[in-house]
């Protein structure tokens, strides 16, 4: 194999090691970016929607207490605006079902909220329910707690997935960095080996050939020059040896 190919192979190997590691790091970093976006899109949106629903539910609960105390106008106004807020949050969560179990959780919220809403839609002021704390705690508050619990489950489910995605992100970042570190270390070791082989199989024979020619010019004797490989250097040394032999023959003929 020729010297050119050997040296080219060395550089190609170095380039391949670094290039493959670089390409993979870019790929992993891109995936990290996608994962961050997914985290925001899929989980953060649902968590926010859940918080919005819980806030709305608590406002509805306060409004029910106002209705219980006979303040119809105030209570009705708060409860209707809170219902709008809940529906907004619910619609967001319903349109963002992305993880296993989320759909079932949404269905549960829907059913429980329907039951809860039916309770406060019926008249409270000027009925037997007004000021009836037993009815409030046994029916209304229980229904409120049920919906809140279901929304809490949805938030917890998204929190858990968010944690898993974050752990996955940590691993992916590690995997994006490691090829670079490994490639740099491998390239350093490879450079040492490459340097050693070039020195041993290329530089050293050139030096001994130069010294040999020098000695031939000074003493007329060409020392044995050893080239272990059959490459351009081998042919060069063979040519020099033939040339020396021809010079000697020519001198002898004189």
């Amino acid at each position: 194999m020729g010297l050119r190919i050997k040296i080219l192979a060395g550089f190609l190997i170095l380039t391949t090691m670094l290039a493959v590691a670089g390409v993979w790091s870019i790929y992993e970093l891109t995936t990290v970016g996608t994962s961050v976006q997914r985290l925001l899109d899929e989980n953060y949106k649902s968590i926010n929607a859940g918080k919005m629903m819980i806030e709305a539910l608590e406002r509805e609960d306060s409004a029910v207490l106002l209705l219980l105390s006979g303040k119809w106008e105030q209570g009705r106004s708060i409860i209707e605006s809170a219902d709008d807020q809940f529906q907004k949050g619910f619609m967001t969560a319903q349109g963002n079902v992305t993880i296993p179990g989320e759909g079932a959780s949404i269905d549960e919220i829907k059913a429980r909220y329907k039951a809860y809403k039916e309770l406060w839609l019926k008249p409270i002021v000027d009925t037997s329910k007004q000021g009836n704390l037993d009815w409030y705690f046994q029916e209304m508050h229980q229904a409120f707690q049920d919906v809140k619990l279901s929304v809490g489950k949805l938030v917890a489910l998204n929190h858990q997935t968010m944690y898993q995605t974050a752990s996955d992100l940590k691993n992916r970042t590690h995997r994006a960095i490691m090829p670079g570190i490994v490639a740099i270390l491998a390239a350093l070791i490879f450079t040492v080996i490459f340097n050693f082989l070039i020195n041993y199989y290329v530089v050293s024979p050139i030096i001994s050939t130069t010294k040999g020619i020098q000695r031939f010019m000074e003493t007329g004797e060409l020392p044995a020059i050893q080239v272990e490989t059959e490459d351009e250097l081998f042919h060069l040394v063979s040519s020099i040896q033939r040339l020396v032999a021809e010079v000697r023959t020519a001198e002898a003929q004189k």
Partner: protein
Amino acid sequence: MRPQIILRYVGLVLLFNAAFLLISCIISGFNADSAFFPLLYTALISALFGVFPMLFVPPTTKITNKEGFIIVVLSWLLSCLVGVIPYIMWGGEFSFTNAWFESVSGFTTTGSSILTDIEALPLGLLFWRSATHWIGGIGIIIFMLAVHPSMGKSGMILYRTEMSSLAADNFHYRTRKTLQILVVIYVGLTLAETISLLLCGMSIFDAVTHSFATIATGGFSPKNPSIGYYKSTAVEIVIIVFMILSGIHFGLLFAAFTGKITDLWKSSIVRYYLAALTTGVIAVTVSLHGSQVYSWADALRYAAFQVLSIGTSTGFATTDSSIWPSFARLVMIFFTLQCACAGSTSGGIKADRMVLFWKAIVKRVKKIQHPAAVIMVKIDTAAFDDEVVDANILFLSFYIGIVFFSALILTALGVDILSAFSGSAATMGNVGPGFGTVGSAGNFSQIPDVGKWVLTATMLLGRLEIFGLLLFVTFKSWK
């Protein structure tokens, strides 16, 4: 010494590793798991480092003994280093120290692990983990010599350096034929166990990885509870049979498989090995039944598996033997030190040295009784001169000394005495699990980092039979 020749031969070993990395990578690709790139990149680096010296260094059939030793030791060290790369690139529980521990444990067929959740690893990485056992089991150089067409005298030097000095006794063939026998037996046993485990209902992946670990007497399982996961008597019986076979000298196994089955029984080493294991199983069974916890059947089942697993230096587990009675644990510690026969894939002091040791004691007693008598130490037809006997005793003393020294360092690092001693003995003998926190139901994750480095050094000392590694670190003073 010619570094370029060493580079060329070590390069061949790296190419061999690259082939297995590529297989693991393909498995990873099929499962679309996260280990694909770490395995692919390691295979690429390993192959490039392997091929490059071959472009420059012309082949040679002549290497010196010193070069041979350096090639063998460097091949082991570099294989372990290559084994680290996919682990650290993948991440998870693998810091550099943990990855080095897992890799050395794999290649030296120790089977000790730092992983608290093995099943969290992707399949590609689990396959590579088991493949390190299989590559290291027979000896990476032996494998390389068997596949490489012609290396002339250099092959013989490398073979002699890699093989245990005791192992050569039962091979009566030329180097090439011996290598072929080793590989045929090794591959044959692996195939036979894989098929048997498949028939027991194991998946192909589990069957192959467990066969790799059994025949190499390694002990890595892709399942957290090891063989206990399967709760299958049939699986346990198959593994027991192959563990026993893997602990016998491959030359004798070859003779047995080619019709000379009586050769097995004629060997006093094999007779001692089987008798010791049987005695161990009976003693532990009685001890377990006596503890009022196990019925006779359960005691025999657990004792047979655990004693044979430790006694062959495999290290699989079906139960937590750390909570067994002290007597049973002491019997197991004896087997952790002794292990199986030379010429097999087993580690430890080896049954051959134990027999030689006892014969030397008998000789000494006779010599005291009859000072003028000329008494030779003989095992079967082979007579051993005093130099061999002395070397054997020196090896035994050094072996025990290293185990104590390693245990001493571990206790200084705060590890309890049982875990420190049994862990050191288990890593030195390439067995795997010890007792205490490093028992069959535990792992080595809680050992401090310095302790893990000490244990990996004992694994390598055990695998290279002490003197190989010592010669390597003192090679400058070696004439």
